[in-house]
């Protein structure tokens, strides 16, 4: 049902078809400590809302009223709840409601209630397919919306249909194609691949891990200064209990100030893709990774450690406000600074 533009709508108190409802004013103490500045339209609508809640009315005009309130204040969770109850009581066509919600969701993306209401509706319609498409569209508007991604995860897990899961990798690749630094997309990938059970086709877990490592390394090669990708890499290694040391060959070039010489550009090592041409090196996350590798290897290699410490020192942006958790790392950095001992590196 299309509402006319807001400025043309008379207040409910002026509409003869609402004359049978007794509006109820909100209680206001004499000197409210944190007064809310309501508009006349909002005050009027919520007065009538309180009126129909009291009488327990659940009718089509209640749907109109609650829609009006939600448009003025999408956070009014009581209006949402009462609307849902009314939809159920009236056995209203929920696909129409979802279509209305499509419009409101885009308008009010950061409101919890909009998404929760959708959840309730889809649990009734049991038709999740179009939801994934809707979510993809709304993510075009706000690519990192927390509620939207969370709703997508809920749809997938709740219905747990292989057909729904099957497009997720492609979907995430396209999101990362648009923005390789989208942390929500990286998180979602981990959720889909490692935290939602094993689906048919992915039973060979070793193959899955190889695929994921190749995927993240390739993305790091394209844009090394990307915290999400490095977090993902670490996440995969931690989850599969692969030692960080195994990644040394890949990580090392990223931790140096310039790309290695003498490597023909046509030769692409899939195991260890090199930083792309205009990368800003050294990459801090790579240096930190090297420090972790040295620590895992036993930490006794002091020259290597001070070299890492010196590079970190040069990366002034980080060293001015990091005190590094483990004493080993801190001491190597202090040693490098205090003694000027930079191992094989020239200052």
């Amino acid at each position: 049902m299309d509402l006319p533009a807001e400025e043309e709508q008379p207040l409910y108190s002026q509409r003869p078809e609402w004359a049978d409802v007794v509006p109820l004013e909100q209680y206001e103490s004499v000197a409210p400590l944190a007064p809310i500045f309501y508009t006349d339209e909002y005050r009027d609508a919520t007065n009538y809302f309180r009126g129909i809640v009291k009488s327990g009315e659940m009718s089509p005009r209640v749907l109109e009223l609650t829609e009006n309130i939600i448009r003025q204040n999408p956070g009014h969770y009581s209006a949402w709840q009462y609307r849902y109850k009314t939809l159920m009581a009236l056995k209203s066509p929920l696909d129409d409601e979802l279509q209305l919600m499509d419009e409101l969701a885009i308008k009010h993306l950061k409101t919890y209630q909009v998404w929760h209401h959708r959840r309730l509706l889809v649990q009734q319609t049991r038709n999740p397919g179009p939801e994934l498409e809707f979510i993809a569209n709304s993510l075009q508007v706000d690519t990192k919306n927390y509620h939207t991604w969370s709703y997508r995860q809920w749809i997938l897990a709740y219905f747990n249909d292989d057909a729904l899961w099957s497009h997720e990798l492609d979907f995430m690749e396209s999101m990362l194609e648009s923005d390789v630094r989208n942390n929500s997309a990286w998180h979602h990938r981990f959720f889909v691949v490692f935290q939602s059970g094993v689906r048919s086709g992915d039973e060979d877990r070793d193959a899955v891990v190889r695929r994921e490592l190749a995927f993240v390394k390739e993305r790091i090669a394209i844009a090394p200064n990307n915290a999400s990708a490095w977090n993902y890499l670490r996440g995969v290694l931690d989850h599969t209990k692969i030692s960080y040391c195994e990644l040394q060959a890949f990580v090392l070039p990223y931790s140096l100030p310039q790309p290695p010489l003498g490597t023909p550009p046509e030769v692409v090592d899939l195991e260890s893709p090199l930083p792309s041409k205009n990368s800003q090196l050294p990459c801090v996350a790579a240096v930190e990774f090297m420090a972790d590798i040295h620590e895992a290897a036993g930490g006794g290699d002091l020259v290597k450690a001070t070299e890492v410490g010196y590079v970190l020192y040069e990366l002034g942006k980080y060293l001015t406000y990091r005190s590094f958790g483990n004493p080993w790392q801190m001491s190597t950095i202090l040693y490098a600074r205090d003694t000027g001992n930079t191992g094989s590196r020239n200052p």
Partner: protein
Amino acid sequence: MNAVYWSLTALLIMGHGDTLDRDEMIDFVMSCWDEEAGAFSAHPDHDVHLRSTLSAIQILSMQNALNRVDVDRVVKFYLSLQQPSGSFAGDAFGETDTRFLYCAVNALSLLGKLDKLDIQKTVAYIKRCRNFDGGFGAVAGAESHASRVFVCVAALAILDRLDEVDQPTLYWWLSERQLPNGGLNGRPEKLEDVCYSFWVSSALSILNKLTWIDSSKLEAFILSAQNTESGGIADRPGNMPDIFHTMFGLAGLSLLGYPALVDLDPVYCMPASIIENLGLRKGWKALQRRTS
């Protein structure tokens, strides 16, 4: 109700807890009590919510009027909102979020009724919200977000279960929230916001790692978001101030040791002395208060 809690806590942090009339405030809180539901709403005649109920308990606690609370009914209200999964809904509408879990744990702790909670079940749910990057999300499977890291870490602190935190990975993730301008963001590649000064700093304090961020840079950022004409602190420099960001900016400054502010307990987000008097202080560590 939330606005009153933010205002009172902000004033107490600045050592001016008497600025707002105590009796009026208590009257307002009690006018939000819903006898039928056995909980507090955000405003008279609004529906009850577990968040406004926590704010009410915190306000009454800070005003030394906790005896006004019908403890048994409030405990019943909180317990009724725990879901089979272990998570908590906020109200009858049914939205679940780890924020609400924290509200329940905090409130039950302040009322001395934590023993009524199924702690095992609650902790198990928090564990399901822990992600590969060490952070926590709003529900199981959701992306790590600094605000949910705070609520989960603080809830675990209250329940004496910080062993469920992947500490080294999480300290790293939290310290990575600091941006070159000194401000903190809520997740990678997002913008800084003053309120993260609390969500991130409190989590780091609870983990005894507040030194992992550059405190002077963060302080300078928070102070630059002040409005020198109207007063108050905004979400970032140049924007309009509001009570929420003023409160959390001050909370951050207190934890960072800013001179002449009162010590804040990062677990409960209330003055530390009040929490100590209730015997609820946990092993957190803020920065030393500077004298100038």
